[in-house]
């Protein structure tokens, strides 16, 4: 499948001492320390899990086409939505964003030859396939049924073996994520080419600093919660079990202390990707570089102090609810700064409506809807009203699918020519976009209404009056499923048969475009030197010459 990633002859001369000057297809299936190989490994693996999670989602939607639980029995339905969420979050969006894009792009963008700790990087990757295989394999033993939140005491009383496997998989995935975070932080802070200061970094690197900080601070808390939960499950302690004097709400606090920042771990990398893609395809400098860079850090900080807004109905005291309501609403400010920055970048630009730009614009429009319904949910009275209804499901899919998954496709199309060395088919990319955008909105927009009407989430059966809208959602989800086909055909066909990509098909200014496509093994024959800002597009010719000379 990957045989075509051979390098131009230059690469072989570039690193004669390296022992294996040429990229072999076996590299992609074995323990390899090249960040580009690892990035592609992450992407292909996580896309596989996207398909698995997508199949589960189609099962859920098919079940919900009728009010009665007639396709699968309710226990299996519970397992299906538990696994759907777990796989989509921990094995698709997190590895695709922080694993695939960050690994592939960071060293290229800052002019480094690899990550700071290449072996650690490979170890982090190879923790994920076992985690995923265990999760899927747990269907054989009776999968966890307590939802991806796995709240005790429910998680302590249902499907114990599946729950234990679930905990262990998540601990593996979390460790992998932390090791990745260490690597990104060290690489970005310490390995930039000497000419690149912090304020000359591509904005994707800023986004990854913010993401890595969240990974390092928040993920261990989830690990702590899961360790205590596993003691309750396997050793009979009662940390979270009220019958033994424990407190389930403590688990909720620990869980959401990670899992709310996890939302930002899942979306900040894509804020970075969007900040790269929009200026390039609008041929304009980014509007407000500093504002976008610092707002990532602000989101990262605020993201750590909003977690209890998931717990407004868990008996949280009124003053605490007020605090979390206000902090949650404040997060809309740095996020809004970014959105305005992107829109102002596009304003009056020479926008080319190619696949990455279409997905970036899709990201902007759907993410803003998700962001606004997020502010609605931050308001305590409204949240109590729609808690555990489909409104929440609609909101989170607008953020995680409309945000993160659109961001992933933006990134895939934008860097496909660089990573594969061949151009994708623009026509099929556009078909993919239209089908995804329509399918996405048909699937998730009606869920807002269903939620406001009171349809509860996570239940296999529902009142008959919700059937019409549910069927709309189900048809939309089928369109969404079919939309993967043009993408897969496009990506796989062009991998082998696509037109050869030039080094810099988008006329971009960041370092990853200053090397061959695909980049040679150690990225640069000669390390590049920074002579322009990362987004100096459409600047007058004389100014540019002056910059180069000066």
């Amino acid at each position: 499948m990957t045989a075509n990633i051979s390098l131009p002859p230059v690469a072989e001369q570039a690193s004669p001492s390296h022992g294996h000057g040429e990229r072999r297809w076996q590299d992609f299936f074995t323990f390899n320390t090249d960040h580009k190989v690892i990035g592609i490994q992450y992407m292909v693996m996580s896309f596989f899990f996207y398909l698995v999670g997508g199949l589960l989602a189609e099962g859920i939607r098919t079940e919900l086409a009728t009010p009665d639980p007639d396709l699968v029995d309710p226990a299996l339905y519970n397992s299906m939505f538990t696994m759907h969420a777990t796989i989509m979050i921990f094995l698709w969006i997190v590895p695709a964003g922080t694993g695939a894009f960050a690994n592939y792009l960071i060293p290229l963008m800052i002019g480094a030859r690899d990550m700071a700790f290449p072996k650690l990087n490979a170890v982090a990757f190879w923790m994920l396939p076992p985690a995923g295989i265990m999760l899927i394999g747990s269907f054989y033993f009776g999968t966890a049924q307590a939802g991806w939140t796995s709240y005790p005491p429910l998680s302590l009383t249902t499907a114990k073996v599946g729950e234990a496997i679930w905990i262990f998989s998540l601990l593996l995935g979390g460790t992998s994520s932390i090791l990745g975070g260490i690597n990104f932080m060290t690489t970005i802070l310490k390995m930039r080419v000497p000419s690149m200061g912090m304020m000359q970094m591509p904005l994707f690197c800023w986004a990854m600093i913010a993401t890595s900080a969240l990974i390092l601070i928040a993920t261990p808390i989830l690990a702590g919660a899961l360790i205590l939960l596993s003691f309750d499950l396997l050793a009979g302690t009662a940390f979270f079990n009220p019958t033994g004097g424990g407190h389930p709400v403590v688990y909720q606090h620990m869980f959401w202390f990670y899992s709310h920042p996890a939302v930002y771990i899942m979306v900040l990398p894509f804020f970075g990707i969007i900040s790269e893609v929009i200026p390039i395809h609008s041929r304009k400098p980014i509007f407000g570089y500093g504002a976008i860079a610092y707002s990532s850090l602000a989101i990262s900080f605020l993201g750590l102090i909003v977690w209890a807004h998931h717990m407004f109905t868990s008996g949280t005291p009124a003053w605490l609810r007020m605090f979390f309501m206000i902090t949650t609403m404040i997060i809309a400010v740095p996020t809004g700064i970014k959105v305005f920055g992107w829109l102002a970048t596009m304003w009056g630009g020479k926008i080319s409506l190619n696949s990455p730009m279409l997905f970036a614009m899709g990201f902007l429009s759907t993410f803003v809807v998700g962001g606004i319904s997020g502010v609605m949910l931050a308001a305590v009275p409204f949240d109590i009203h729609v808690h555990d209804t489909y409104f929440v499901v609609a909101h989170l899919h607008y953020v995680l699918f409309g945000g993160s998954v659109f961001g992933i496709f933006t990134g895939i199309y934008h860097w496909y020519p660089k990573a594969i060395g061949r151009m994708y088919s623009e026509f099929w990319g556009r078909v993919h976009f239209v089908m995804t955008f329509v399918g996405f909105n048909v699937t998730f927009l009606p869920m807002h209404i269903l939620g406001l009407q009171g349809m509860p989430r996570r239940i296999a059966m529902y009142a008959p009056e919700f059937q019409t809208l549910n069927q709309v959602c189900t048809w939309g989800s089928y369109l969404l499923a079919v939309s993967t086909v043009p993408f897969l055909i496009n990506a796989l066909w062009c991998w082998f048969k696509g037109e050869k990509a030039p080094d810099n098909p988008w006329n971009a200014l960041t370092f990853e475009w200053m090397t061959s496509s695909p980049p040679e093994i150690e990225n640069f024959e000669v390390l590049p030197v920074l002579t322009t800002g990362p987004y100096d597009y459409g600047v007058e010719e004389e100014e540019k010459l002056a910059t180069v000379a000066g």
Partner: protein
Amino acid sequence: MQGSIDNKNQSIQISGTAETVAVAHGHEEHPDLRIFGLFMFLVAESALFIGLFVAYLTFRAVAPVWPPEGTPKLELLLPGINTVILISSSLVIHQADSAIKKNDVAGLRKWFGITALMGIVFLCGQVYEYMHLEFGLRTNLFASTFYVLTGFHGLHVMVGVMLMLAVLWRSIKSADHYSSDSHFGVEAAEIYWHFVDVIWIILFILLYLL
């Protein structure tokens, strides 16, 4: 659109050759970042322990009586001695660092050996304490948190001891493995050991003194 930008790219690549950079294998051309990476790792480790501490404090804060009624009093003598051993071992391990900075490999071995021994004594003391406690893992919430927190810390002590033994093994296998200007293993083990020490001090205050 294409032409003007292409010029620009060219100028970047040409100016790139101005600075000669060795095209050696990537990892020899940047400074050693392992200590920095270790600190990043310890940030994550600290977060893990802080999470567990805060969980403990929450259990404590919401309980009407803490420790729950009927919990036997903790003996202070043995853990007190253990604490003194662990804290002083941090001073001992620092001697090893000073020794290797003077290229004194024998000194390194001596001080690392003593520190590892102190770590092992600490672990044995903890096992002895576990065996003589009057409550078990499942007795009540205090007992569970006590065992999990001390056990989890004990695991870290064990890792620290193993790191020191690994350094000892390497320095015995080849006498010039560590030198005054290349001793990441020594430094890493020392930093990790100090970290484990600090965690114990907090743990001791939380579980035994408060």
